[in-house]
């Protein structure tokens, strides 16, 4: 999709009408993941096609900065290929494998986790292992934080490198709602007495699916079946109570459940307009970022449900047929650096949560990450430590399909 830095129009015209679309200038080069300085050399002059979700302007601007820095320091041309859904990227890689394209993949690096990673790993569509060879990998302290090596219960096996953390948080506008509900069940009670104050994005939007997972985890009391591959029987058994819950919840939602917002951004807009007083997000800093830009009023507060909420790590992976593997690895390593992670966590730039283990840093490095914690609109670190584990990736598409089946036509 749209590129980070479009080349000048003249060059573009030249390329369009003169060069063939299939020109390939790369030769297969031997990649030694252990020799980092050789990789840096190989990476010079390469272009990295980085497929990442493009729906959030802040991320796009941050990646702009990353591109400029990579250009200056490593002579790497980073192109942010905006995708609406990671599934598209997975399909493209699958299609390229089917077409026999094993060396000229159109994607060099992708932002991925969960069922998409599981699918790629299972079908041996990823290059690696390479992640733990990165000089910056030690910063995440994987021994203390095993989630750095595990993606929704599936081991990463060094096939992907951590990039950002996320956690499901709820936020409310304290001028309309002072004591927000602290459990999924409490949400139903409250919504019933205060109809039209809450809604969630329509699955299969990522946030909507996450709400379903959170709900099913709480309602089923962390049923162990959720952490194993899904089967029809288990699915029926575990989700019956979920559908009962949703059947009761939907009529109390905004627009009586006849319309669900499309995304987290739209949900934010609804709160900004005063249409709802409770919303959710997958970026713990989302509310605070929006308060700073004026999108949300300063009465907004973020919190984590009493029993904990789903949290995960999202990663960067390299397809097996990537043309520019060296540059991709340098890029991933840079994104994992203190400098890049600090800037990412700064609400003025991306406002994400870092994967680096801050406590292990020295004082001056630690300072770079100080921008967030004391803001009123943010959830406290203590709250954020209340984490629930993600269910097995196979549950997500199953839940989405079932939701669409039940609620698409009212």
């Amino acid at each position, binding site marked *: 999709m749209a590129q980070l830095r479009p080349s000048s129009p003249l060059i573009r015209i030249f390329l369009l009408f003169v060069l063939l679309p299939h020109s390939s200038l790369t030769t297969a080069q031997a990649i030694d993941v252990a020799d980092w300085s050789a990789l840096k050399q190989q990476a010079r002059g390469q272009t990295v096609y980085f497929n990442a979700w493009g729906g959030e302007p802040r991320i796009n601007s941050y990646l702009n900065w990353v591109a400029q820095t990579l250009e200056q320091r490593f002579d790497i041309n980073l192109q942010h290929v905006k995708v609406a859904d990671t599934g598209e990227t997975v399909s493209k890689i699958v299609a390229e494998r089917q077409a026999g394209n094993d060396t000229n993949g159109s994607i060099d690096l992708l932002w991925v986790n969960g069922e998409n990673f599981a699918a790629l790993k299972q079908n041996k569509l990823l290059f690696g292992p390479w992640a733990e060879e990165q000089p910056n990998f030690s910063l995440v302290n994987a021994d203390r934080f095993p989630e750095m090596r595990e993606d929704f219960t599936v081991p990463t096996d060094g096939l992907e490198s951590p990039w950002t953390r996320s956690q499901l948080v709820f936020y409310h506008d304290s001028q309309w709602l002072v004591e927000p509900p602290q459990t999924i069940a409490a949400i139903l009670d409250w919504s019933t007495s205060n109809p039209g104050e809450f809604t969630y994005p329509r699955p299969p939007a990522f946030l909507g699916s996450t709400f379903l997972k959170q709900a099913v985890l709480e309602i089923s009391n962390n049923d162990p079946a959720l952490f194993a591959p899904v089967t029809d029987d288990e699915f029926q058994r575990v989700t019956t109570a979920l559908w009962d819950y949703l059947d009761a919840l939907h009529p109390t939602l905004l627009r009586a459940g*006849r319309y669900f917002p499309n995304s987290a951004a739209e949900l934010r807009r609804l709160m900004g307009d*005063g249409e709802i007083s409770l919303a959710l997000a997958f970026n713990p800093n989302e509310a605070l970022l929006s308060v700073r830009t004026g999108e949300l009023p300063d009465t907004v507060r973020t919190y984590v449900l009493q029993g904990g909420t789903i949290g995960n790590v999202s990663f960067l992976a390299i397809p097996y047929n990537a043309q520019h593997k060296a540059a991709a690895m340098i890029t991933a390593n840079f994104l994992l650096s203190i400098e890049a992670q600090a800037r990412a966590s700064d609400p003025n730039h991306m406002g994400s949560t870092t994967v680096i283990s801050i406590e292990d840093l020295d004082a001056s490095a630690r300072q770079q990450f100080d921008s967030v914690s004391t803001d009123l609109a943010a959830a406290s670190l203590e709250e954020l430590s209340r984490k629930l584990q993600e269910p097995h990736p196979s549950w997500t598409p199953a839940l989405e399909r079932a939701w669409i089946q039940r609620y698409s036509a009212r």
Partner: protein
Amino acid sequence: MLRWASHSLIFLLAAPILLGTFIASLPAFGYFPPLGSSDFSVEAWRKLFDVPGLTRSVLISLISGVLTPLISLTLVFLYLASATGSKLDLWIRRLVSPLLSFPHAAAAFGLAFLIAPSGLFSRIISSGLTGWERPPDILIVNDTWGLSLLFGLIVKEVPFLLLMSLAALPQLQPRYRIEVARTLGYRPTIAWLKVIAPSLYPLVRLPVIAVIVFASATVDVALILGPTLPPTLSVRVLSWFNDPDLNLRFLAAAGSLLQLVVSLIAVAIWLVLEKLVGLLWRFWLAAGNRNTGESLAFVIGRGAMPTVLMVIAGSLLALLTNAFAGPWRFPSAAPSSWTIQHWANSLSDLSAPLFNTVLISVSSTLLALILVAATLESERQSGKGKSTVMWLLYLPLLIPQIVFLFGIIVLTEFAGWQANLSLVIFGHLLFVLPYVFLSFSEAYRQLDPRWTQVASTLGASQLKSFWQIRIPLLLAPILTALAIGMAISISLFLPTQLLGAGRITTITTEAVALTSGASRNLISVWAIVQLSLPIVGFMMALFIPKFIWRNRSGMIDTR
């Protein structure tokens, strides 16, 4: 050479569309080698009819397909009946052409930002008139039965049908007929309805059918204003087509064929209605009453156009305020501060799509113009009258875009071609061609033949007189046709989206993609950019001739 060009025009118009429609049907019955499937099967249809809410989707598409032209045409006719020749009419006629260049997506966004519970209209009347401190929980935009969609479509199609009617009216000698009717005692509005309308309708039937097809199969307007649970059929087909799971392609193919059927049914319903109304009209005509309904028709007619204009103006205002708004809490009627931050933020994202948009629209329109000019010149030189190309011209407007575009894509996938810019330009060419032809042909055919005769007597060859006499004399109509063609190309969504496989971005595709996520401010910025582009084109069409012919008083009058 000339004949070749004009024959290729016909080929270009008809072949891909008919071929595309045919080919779209193949995956519907299981034939799709790229996915490894070549056995005939009706599996896709079974899956299609299992889709939840399919009936509702189909019904909504059908209803919009029939109600949009019904209401739009009624309003247009009532307007013409009640306001022809008045001062109001003078204003309206000047505004109609530019109004048409307001791209669908931008208009839909503007409308959404106007009528939503937290939209401009609501903010203006709150909290003073309504006492609302928070927006009401009413489902307006994206309502389940597609009323917002209908509203948005009507607002867009009324100017279109008005323009088509105005173009067709002169040949009916309306003033003369009305005078005769009035001397027989008929009140003016009734007179128009009884005496002009029956003759005018057949002349605008084709555009009306184009409206039916568009309304029943639109994707971009439905994405912005239409229902979501479930969406219209065309939106669902698009989502199946875009789904990463390639197996859904079969479903998409079946769905697009169903869409074709639905549009055909809508047209059939319309034709039946036409006959019914025709019958009723004849009774009414024969009944001979001259007064009943005059006031009602008059009021609605006079009120219709200004209302539509106000809605469009309101939509534009909504876009403008949102594009420059600082923090803006409901229920304030205006933002607390103004800012250009949203523009600054979008600048870098705008450049690539803007470049593509201009490149694609200029290329496709220029190509279209060349083909049209070649056809018209060939027609002129052969001395034969208007060819039967006319109905072929309307093909892209008579078959739902999603059907034949899908077919063209399947064709390219069979052939192993990659989506690229040339394909997108070709797709745009298909849609631009009818409009360029319509807008340019009259001027071309009406050009005083004596100019070319004089040139011949002075020894100029056909080629020389074409380039040195005809073309310069037609500069203003050429630029207008270019402006219209570019406006059409700029507003296209589906051809770019499908033929470009999502990799070629234009202002329109990006703006529509933003519907699902971005802030109103960002969307407004994009919508305004989208609607400014055609304005630039029309400004050029207006001022370039004035500039070039500034020392040629004989040219300024030439229209």
